[in-house]
């Protein structure tokens, strides 16, 4: 990958609590987000994906390590730079039902970020901008703008959330499981929309998911997390087609695949092996091996 990343995490660690009971939610995490590219962060619940997202959002401060925004450490930012960061990095949440205020219209939800973050948009242009945002996410402005969240379906609400993020004119979007609460038939529509936005607006997209098949659908790069570490990362096709880390292999073998029947004894996962891989992968793995150009794996 060439060019300076928009946002980069450099050996970032986050520990909750102290002493023997401390939880190492993120251990020496490094990744970078580039304009017009998507990085998928995949792993099971508790692996540290959301902790990484929250650090990227500056909701958590890292225990150790640096977060770089266009090459500059964000800890060193002054008030104006911090405000710029808040505008430039936007988030889309998992639950489209909980992330919109039930007491306000959709138009209100989209006006707020415009008033807050977009001094370049004149007061007289705000209504037109709201309409344009809704059109961008393929919703009919006349129909949707005056409505309240409860009048919309889950997929429509998630589109509103995307529009709300876009209203701030972001450079990076962090999407934490944006489709896991949606019906299967509307998931692809939302993912397609995210991909289009990423390309058209040259956004850096951090796509967090436990669904590795959608990761391949959306992202160019992938990072597989387990127990707070990124155990394998690189080009999405290379990692999924020729996984090198035992945990990635385990994860891939468990993805529902209609070509594989449970009755087939050769595909049976042995609980002892699963336990073993989990225990091994949870240990600190300091060695980084380049299996292939743009494909890396950690080892003990």
């Amino acid at each position, binding site marked *: 990958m060439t060019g300076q990343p928009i946002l980069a995490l450099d050996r970032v660690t986050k520990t909750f609590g102290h002493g023997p009971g401390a939880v190492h939610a993120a251990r020496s995490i490094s990744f970078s987000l580039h304009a017009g590219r998507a990085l998928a962060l995949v792993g099971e619940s508790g692996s540290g994906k959301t902790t990484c997202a929250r650090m990227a959002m500056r909701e958590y401060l890292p225990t150790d390590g640096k977060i770089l925004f266009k090459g500059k450490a964000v800890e060193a930012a002054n008030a104006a730079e911090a405000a710029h960061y808040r505008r430039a990095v936007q988030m889309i949440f998992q639950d489209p039902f909980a992330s919109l205020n039930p007491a306000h219209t959709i138009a209100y939800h989209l006006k707020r970020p415009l008033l807050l973050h977009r001094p370049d948009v004149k007061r007289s242009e705000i209504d037109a901008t709201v309409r344009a945002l809704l059109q961008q996410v393929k919703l009919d402005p006349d129909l949707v703008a005056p409505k309240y969240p409860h009048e919309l379906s889950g997929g429509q609400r998630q589109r509103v959330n995307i529009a709300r993020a876009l209203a701030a004119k972001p450079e990076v979007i962090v999407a934490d499981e944006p489709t896991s609460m949606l019906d*299967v038939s509307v998931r692809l529509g939302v993912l397609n929309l995210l991909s289009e936005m990423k390309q058209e607006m040259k956004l850096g997209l951090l796509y967090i998911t436990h669904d590795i098949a959608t990761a391949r659908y959306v992202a160019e790069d992938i990072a597989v997390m387990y127990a707070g570490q990124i155990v394998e990362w690189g080009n999405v*096709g290379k990692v999924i087609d020729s996984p090198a880390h035992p945990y990635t292999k*385990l994860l891939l073998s468990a993805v529902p695949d*209609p070509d594989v*029947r449970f009755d087939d004894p050769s595909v049976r996962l042995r*609980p002892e092996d699963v336990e073993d891989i989990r225990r091994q992968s949870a240990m600190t793995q300091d060695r980084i091996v380049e299996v292939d150009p743009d494909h890396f794996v950690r080892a003990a």
Partner: protein
Amino acid sequence: MTAPLLSVKNLTIDYIGEEKDFRAVDNVSFDVAPGEVFGLAGESGCGKSTIAFAISRLHKPPALIRRESTILLNGRDVLDLDDKALRDFRWREVAMVFQSAMNSLNPVLRIEQQFYDVLKTHKGMSRAQARDRTAEMLKLVDIAPDRMRDYPHQFSGGMRQRIVIAICLALDPRLVVMDEPTTALDVVVQREILQRINELRRSLGFAVLFITHDLGLMVQFCDRIGIMLAGKLVEQNTAEAIYGSPEHDYTKQLWASFPSLHGGVLL
């Protein structure tokens, strides 16, 4: 073909509203053979959980099961059972596992006690007998029997779900209804649990009514599958046929909405 274990005929269920009724299940008929895994797939709101509730007789008003409906289990109409018969029927003949079943364990009782409650009520077992049965059931789901003295919070989500499954199987039911039993869990844990259930149904011989929206998973696990759309069963066939040669447009549409691990979508 052997006589079906479960036979659902012309099942129609309405939710009674103030102005108009909502037809959640519309004239659905299907059979499940002994030892078979039958899947019901569809999106939220299509009526699949409403069917599961009807089979266990869990519906309360405003749900109304229309008169022409019959649900036969071993030839007996479930919809005609009185209160006492219903108590015997639930758990002993039909057990249920829900999506958030792991949260249905009582947090202040040891696992052992929760097994004992079931075994005493339904089988009149003594403490010692119940303990033996509990150990046996925990082993079946790959949990060390000495952990029966622990409380639910000391187990992971996947282990709690396995404990609920073990409690369900403790009375040797003929049919286990599983409504999105692993949706809240990670894929590896999901695979471990379903693989185990598959082995157990082969050895113990119970049938499963498996409900999920994940078609790929369903084809891996089920013998036959029914596809539901807006309360109707639009297609019903073997798992191989639903995957290899789906007939209904909606089935094709569902397949097209799953991205494949190998790039593109599944169909």
